[in-house]
C-alpha cells in the first residue's frame, strides 16, 4: 500500500488597502479565491457528497486566514466577482458574435464565477467555515504556519522573533478555527537545527521538510524520507518527495506545461480594445489580467491555438493515470528495497491548482477519486500517521529549504540582502522595548503591540521573495519600508516616553491583523 500525504499551503501576504477604492494587489486574494480556494472547496465537498474516502492537509496561513475572515475584503471580493460576472455576460455575447471558438469557455468562466459567488454567500462569505466542516468530518487536517510566513532560518540568531512568529501563527489558527494546530508548515520548508525544539515547546507535533534534508543529514538515514523523521526534539518531520512532486511542479516538464492546457498569460485584458475592458482593468488605463483567457499553451509561439476544455480534460485523465502509475512504480521499487508501505509526502502551494494551473483542481479530483477506488493507494495525513505509531527514524538535519539551491539564496541575494540590516535592528529594538517597558497599560501597551505587528509584517518572506523574483518589486519594497518606518515611529516615541495617539489609531485601522497580539511575545526566551 502506498500512502500519500498531500499537504497544500494556502498563503498570501497581508494586503488590505481600504484607503483606495480598488487596489491591484488585493487581486492576489480575489483571483486565488475565485480560481483556487472556492473551486477547491467545491471539489472537496463534491467528493464528500459522493462518498469518496479522501484525506489531505491544508495550511491556511495566518495572513491569508485573516484576510478571508475580514468583512471589508469579503465585500470587495463580492464587488470583484460581480465585475467578473458582468464581463462574463458581455463575453458570452461578444464571443457568440465575433469569436465563436471562445464561446464555450466564456460560458464556462461565467458559470464557474456564478457558482463560486453563490457558495461564498452560502457560507456567510467565510470560506474557512467550509474547510472547517470538512476537517470536522476528518477529511482535512488543518495546519498553520509562521504568523507572517517569515523564512525562519535567516532569523535564527533571534530566537524571540522566531518564537513570536510561531506563537502568533498558532494563536491566530486557534482564534479562527477554534482549536490548536498540531502541524506547522515551515515557510518555504525553511529548517535549521534547533527550530524543531521551538516548535515542540509550542505544542506542535510535525512539520514538513525539504526533499534533500535526509540525504544531506548529519546522520545516516535508512528510510530515505519514506517514513517520518524524528527530529532531536521529538518533533516529526515529513520529507517532501521531489520525485513525485516534480511530476506536477516542474516548470519545464511538469503536467501544467502541457500544450493543451490553458495559457496563463494570454488574457483579454491585454488584447481586446481598451474601451471594452476598461471597467475591468486597473485605473486609469493599466491593462491587467481579467481571468478571461481563451488560448492553450500551444508552445513558445505567438500563434496560440484556441483552448479546448474537452481536449484539456482528456489530458487531465492521462495525467492522473500517469501520476498514479509513477507512484505505484516507485512504491514497488521502495518496497523491494525493504521499506513496506512507503509514505510519499507531496507538498505544494495551493494556488498552483486552479490559479496558475487552470486544470489543477480537476487533476486533484481525478487523483483522489482514482486512489479511493484502488487498493494500491491511500491518501492520509501526517497526524494520522503519527497516531499509527509506525516506524520512524531519528535524524539530525542541516539547515535546508525548498528554495532554489536548497538553502537561503532566494531570500538573501543582491536584490534583498539590504533588508536584514533594518529588520535585525528592529528586532533588537523590539526586544529592548519589552525590557524597558515590561508592564504597560492600555495606550502604551497598544502602541507596543502595534510595533510588534509592524515588525512581524516586515519579517514576511514574501517581500524578499518578490524582490528576488522581480514580480511586484516596487510594492514589496514600499510595504517593507512602511512597516519598518512605522516600527521606528513607535521606537522613537517610546524612547521619549510618549505615544503618538493619532498615528496609532490610523496604524491600527490600516493593519487589522493579529488583534490579540501581545508585545511580550518578543521577550528574550530566558525572560519569558
Amino acid at each position, binding site marked *: 500500500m502506498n500512502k500519500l500525504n498531500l499537504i497544500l499551503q494556502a498563503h498570501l501576504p497581508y494586503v488590505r488597502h481600504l484607503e483606495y477604492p480598488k487596489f491591484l494587489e488585493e487581486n492576489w486574494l480575489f483571483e486565488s479565491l475565485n480560481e483556487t480556494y472556492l473551486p477547491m472547496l467545491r471539489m472537496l465537498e463534491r467528493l464528500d457528497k459522493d462518498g469518496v474516502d479522501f484525506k489531505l492537509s491544508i495550511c491556511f496561513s495566518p495572513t491569508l486566514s485573516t484576510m478571508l475572515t475580514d468583512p471589508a475584503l469579503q465585500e470587495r471580493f463580492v464587488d470583484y466577482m460581480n465585475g467578473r460576472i458582468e464581463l462574463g455576460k458581455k463575453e458570452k455575447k461578444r464571443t457568440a458574435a465575433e469569436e465563436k471558438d471562445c464561446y464555450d469557455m466564456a460560458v464556462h468562466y461565467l458559470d464557474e464565477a456564478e457558482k463560486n459567488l453563490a457558495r461564498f454567500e452560502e457560507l456567510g462569505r467565510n470560506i474557512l467555515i467550509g474547510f472547517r466542516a470538512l476537517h470536522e468530518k476528518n477529511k482535512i487536517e488543518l495546519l498553520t504556519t509562521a504568523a507572517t510566513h517569515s523564512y525562519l532560518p535567516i532569523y535564527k540568531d533571534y530566537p524571540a522573533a522566531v518564537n513570536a512568529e510561531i506563537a502568533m501563527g498558532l494563536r491566530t489558527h486557534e482564534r479562527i478555527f477554534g482549536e490548536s494546530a498540531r502541524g506547522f508548515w515551515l515557510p518555504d520548508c525553511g529548517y535549521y537545527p534547533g527550530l524543531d525544539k521551538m516548535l515542540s515547546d509550542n505544542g506542535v507535533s510535525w512539520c514538513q521538510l525539504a526533499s*534533500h534534508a535526509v540525504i544531506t543529514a548529519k546522520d545516516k538515514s535508512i528510510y530515505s524520507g519514506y517514513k517520518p523523521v524524528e527530529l532531536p526534539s521529538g518533533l516529526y518531520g515529513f520529507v517532501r518527495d521531489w520525485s513525485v512532486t516534480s511530476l506536477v511542479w516542474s516548470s519545464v516538464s511538469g503536467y501544467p506545461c502541457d500544450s493543451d492546457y490553458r495559457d496563463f498569460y494570454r488574457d483579454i485584458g491585454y488584447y481586446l480594445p481598451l474601451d471594452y475592458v476598461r471597467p475591468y482593468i486597473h485605473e486609469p488605463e493599466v491593462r491587467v489580467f481579467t481571468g478571461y483567457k481563451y488560448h492553450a499553451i500551444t508552445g513558445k509561439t505567438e500563434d496560440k491555438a484556441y483552448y479546448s476544455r474537452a481536449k484539456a480534460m482528456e489530458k487531465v485523465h492521462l495525467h492522473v493515470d500517469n501520476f498514479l502509475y509513477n507512484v505505484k512504480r516507485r512504491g514497488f521499487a521502495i518496497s523491494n528495497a525493504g521499506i513496506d508501505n512507503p509514505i510519499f509526502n507531496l507538498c505544494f502551494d495551493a494556488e498552483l491548482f486552479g490559479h496558475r494551473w487552470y486544470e489543477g483542481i480537476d487533476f486533484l479530483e481525478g487523483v483522489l477519486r482514482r486512489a479511493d477506488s484502488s487498493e494500491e493507494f491511500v491518501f492520509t495525513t501526517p497526524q494520522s500517521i503519527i497516531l499509527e505509531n509506525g516506524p520512524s527514524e531519528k535524524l539530525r538535519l542541516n539547515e535546508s529549504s525548498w528554495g532554489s539551491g536548497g538553502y537561503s539564496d532566494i531570500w538573501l541575494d543582491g536584490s534583498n540582502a539590504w533588508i536584514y540590516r533594518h529588520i535585525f535592528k528592529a528586532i533588537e529594538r523590539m526586544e529592548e522595548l519589552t525590557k524597558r517597558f515590561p508592564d504597560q497599560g492600555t495606550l502604551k501597551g497598544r502602541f507596543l503591540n502595534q510595533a510588534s505587528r509592524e515588525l512581524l509584517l516586515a519579517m514576511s518572506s514574501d517581500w524578499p521573495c518578490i524582490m528576488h523574483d*522581480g*514580480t511586484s518589486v516596487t510594492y514589496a519594497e514600499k510595504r517593507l519600508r512602511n512597516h519598518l518606518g512605522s516600527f521606528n515611529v513607535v521606537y522613537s516615541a517610546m524612547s521619549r516616553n510618549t505615544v503618538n495617539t493619532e498615528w496609532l489609531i490610523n496604524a491600527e485601522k490600516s493593519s487589522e491583523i493579529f488583534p490579540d497580539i501581545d508585545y511580550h511575545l518578543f521577550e528574550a526566551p530566558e525572560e519569558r
Partner: protein
Amino acid sequence: MILVNVDSLSVSELRSIAKQEGIEGSDALSREDIISLLEEKYEDNGQDTDFKDPNLRYMSGLTDYREISNYVEDLPGVEELPEIYPDTEIHLIKKNGLWLYAFWSLSPNDSDRLQDEGSSIVLSVTIENNGAREEYDIPVSFLDTEWNIGIPYGSGFCRVALTAVSKEGEKTMLALSDSEELTDSYWLQHPEDMKYSDSLYRLYLTLVTTKEGDLVDNPVVREIIQLFRKEDRSDE
C-alpha cells in the same frame, strides 16, 4: 519588469506593455521592433528578459508598471529608513552550504576615531572544521559594509569579528558575530561507507530525482551522488 518570454506574446499584448512602459508610437512598430525596444529597456534597468518560471507567485499582469515615488504614498509609514545604524556590530547569515553573508556597521564615533588614529579594519574569520581551526583576515575599507565569506562542508562553525588594526599592527576586536554551523553531512564525512550502501543509494535517488533523471537543485546532493557513482565505478 517583464514576467514572461516576450517571444510568445502577441502583437497587441506587446503594444499594451510598450504603452505601459512609456514607449511612444508602438502602434506603428513591427512586432520585432517592439520586442527589441522592450528588451533594450529592461536591459537598461539591469533586468533579465529570459523566460521566467511560470510558478512565480503574485502577478497581477505582465508587467510591474508603477513608479515607487507615486505609489501607496498614503500608507502610515512616516520615517525614512536610515542608511546605517549608529552601532558597531556585525552579523552573519548562512546563504548556502558554501557561502555566508556578513554585514556590519561602525558607529560614527568608532569610525572617526579609528580613521583619526590611522587604523585599518579587517574581518577576522575563524573556521573550526572537524577539530582543525583556521583563522585569517580579510582587509576591508571604511566604506564597505558587507562581504561574502566562503566556507567548507564539515563539522564545526564559522564566526567573524570586525577588527581594528592599529598602525603598529595591534588588533582590537570591535564586534563579534554569532557562530554559523557548517553543513555537516554523514555521507560527505563517510564516503567509505558508500560501497556497502547500494540499496540506500537507489532509495535516495528515488526521492531526489525527477523521472527525466534530473537531481533536485542542491550542491550537497550533487556531491554525494557523485561520490556514490565514483564508488560504483571503482567496484567495477
